[in-house]
């Protein structure tokens, strides 16, 4: 089984320095691209590889790059931004890639910047990731010193600056246009789309935003080709995935597996199964803003296409497990409190709707909820849903709620009828 993203990583997880990474051939794809490929050729390979965005949206990385104009006369500067704002509850994959293999990300950023002919690139790093910050600062300095960044990289005539930007908190900074506003020193409220960032992004210039894991895949695609990348997944979507598990399992953690692994394999083989005395009730497959999947979905490939027919999506690929000793209403209440708190406040359904949802869930959890409240919650899953808000934050918040209302209806009714939470003594 091939594990390109983690193959260089040392068993103890300590940071790979430049020397180790160069010895392992890690920067060879950069050389290959700068010495012998045109930007259009790089884009073609990445489109053909079917690399889909690992930040949660699953959009083709190569296609996104192809929207950036090639007309350098009209638009001399453009930007590449690495989205390292990882704040999705239950998600802890980008942190590992940055802490343990920072040069893989830098190599991916150089190649991706070259593909869109960016002259400046940024890593937008979340405030709390202090270790990632230290590791990345060192790695960026090493890459400059070795001539992989800066002017005339490897004598190719291509110039690229890479800046590390540390943020100041707020989940909405992860939404790509909110991120761009934040980089411009403003409140991180999302922007209207279109125009998409590829047309008008940072400082009004063409900009591509990609996730850490997406960019980390790029050097391997260049090294081994598009066909290889498609072949290492189980379903043809391309590549491997960092899958994670948190919650009451024996061995929570993160593993690189072929894209399309099943929940059964991940939970039973890698996470060691449920802890003794706990039973599986459901899972959010990819962070807080994905719909629940349950026991009957154990054998569905966890990739971008296969989860859609069962009403969910891959998201970030880090599973959060709901066990039988955790109250599903309390679980949802925790999620909606997070979403309400992190709403940027720009549009009404989200700003007003999410706190209302939170209050209703709180009252049901506390035993003062009414049957009519269920209808109000259902109404919100439509009202705060896709097409009614400025960005995907509120629709994301509604995903676990709508599926939770469906799968855990009896638990909701038990709270309402018994006027208290059955999980509380």
């Amino acid at each position, binding site marked *: 089984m091939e594990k390109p993203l983690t193959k260089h990583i040392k068993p103890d997880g300590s940071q790979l320095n430049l020397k180790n990474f160069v010895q392992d051939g890690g920067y060879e794809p950069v050389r290959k691209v700068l010495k012998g490929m045109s930007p259009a050729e790089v884009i073609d390979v990445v489109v053909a590889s079917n690399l889909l965005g690992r930040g949660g949206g699953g959009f083709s990385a190569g296609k996104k790059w192809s929207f950036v104009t090639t007309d350098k006369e009209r638009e001399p500067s453009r930007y590449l931004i690495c989205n390292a704002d*990882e*704040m*999705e*509850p*239950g*998600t*802890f994959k*980008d*942190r590992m890639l940055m802490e343990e293999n920072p040069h893989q990300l830098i190599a991916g950023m150089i190649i991706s910047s070259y593909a869109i002919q960016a002259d400046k690139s940024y890593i937008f790093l*979340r*405030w*709390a*990731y*202090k*270790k990632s910050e230290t590791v990345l600062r060192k790695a960026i300095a090493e890459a400059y010193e070795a001539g992989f960044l800066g002017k005339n990289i490897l004598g190719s005539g291509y110039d690229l600056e890479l*800046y590390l930007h540390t*943020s*100041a*908190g*707020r*989940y909405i900074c992860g939404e790509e246009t909110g991120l761009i506003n*934040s980089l*411009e*020193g*403003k*409140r*991180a409220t999302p922007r209207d789309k279109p125009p998409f960032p590829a047309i008008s992004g940072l*400082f009004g210039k063409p900009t591509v935003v990609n996730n850490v894991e997406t960019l980390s895949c790029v050097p391997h695609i260049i090294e081994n080709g598009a066909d290889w990348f498609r072949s290492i997944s189980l379903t043809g979507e391309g590549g491997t995935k960092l899958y*994670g*598990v*948190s*919650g*009451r399992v024996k061995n*929570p*953690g*993160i593993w690189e597996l072929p894209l399309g692994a099943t929940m059964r394999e991940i939970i039973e083989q890698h996470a060691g199964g449920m802890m003794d005395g706990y039973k599986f009730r459901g899972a959010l497959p990819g962070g*807080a803003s994905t719909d629940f999947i349950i026991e009957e979905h154990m054998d569905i490939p966890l990739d971008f296409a296969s989860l859609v027919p069962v009403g969910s999506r891959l998201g970030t690929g*880090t599973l*959060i*497990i*709901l*066990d039988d000793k*955790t109250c599903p209403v*309390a*679980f949802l209440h*925790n*999620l909606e409190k*997070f979403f309400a*708190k*992190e709403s*940027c406040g720009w549009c009404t359904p989200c700003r007003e709707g999410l706190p209302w949802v939170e209050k209703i869930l709180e009252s049901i959890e506390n035993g003062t909820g009414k049957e009519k409240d269920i209808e109000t919650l259902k109404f919100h899953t439509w009202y705060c849903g896709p097409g009614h808000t400025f960005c995907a934050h509120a629709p994301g918040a509604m995903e676990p709620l709508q599926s939770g209302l469906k799968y855990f209806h009896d638990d909701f009714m038990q709270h309402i009828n018994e006027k208290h939470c059955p999980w509380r003594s």
Partner: protein
Amino acid sequence: MLTEQEKKEIEEEVKHYPYPGVACLDALKIVQAHRGWVADDAVRDIADLLDISSEKVDGVATFYTRIYRKPVGRHVILICDSISCMIMGYEPVYKHISAKLGIHFGETTADNRFTLLPITCLGNCDQAPAMMIDNDLFNMITIENIDQIFEKYE
């Protein structure tokens, strides 16, 4: 009044950008690094220096959770209150900390030693519950190991 040092650091940031207002968040971070928090006069001074309105600076300052518009204690405790940490039991640990220090989320101890705040998922969900004190990360916190962790922070 911004100090000469603060001004110098802010002007250094301004150089990287197409117009001075872009440095707004950087300026807030710089002031906070020197003073621990950002008071009203600092908001006005930053606005003057960057040639933007103080409402705009305050709008930015109040948007971001890691910019403090009120004084904080010598150490800031950030407890993850997101889903994986809830499942793994951050609440009993929070209650223990809260009782021990005599403060709730959003408050500072009378001796100014600690401020207690919640934070969204720290990306340590496989080793939950997680907590940060200042720049240090702690995994798998329990009622038993909290006292020992606190000792280091005077």
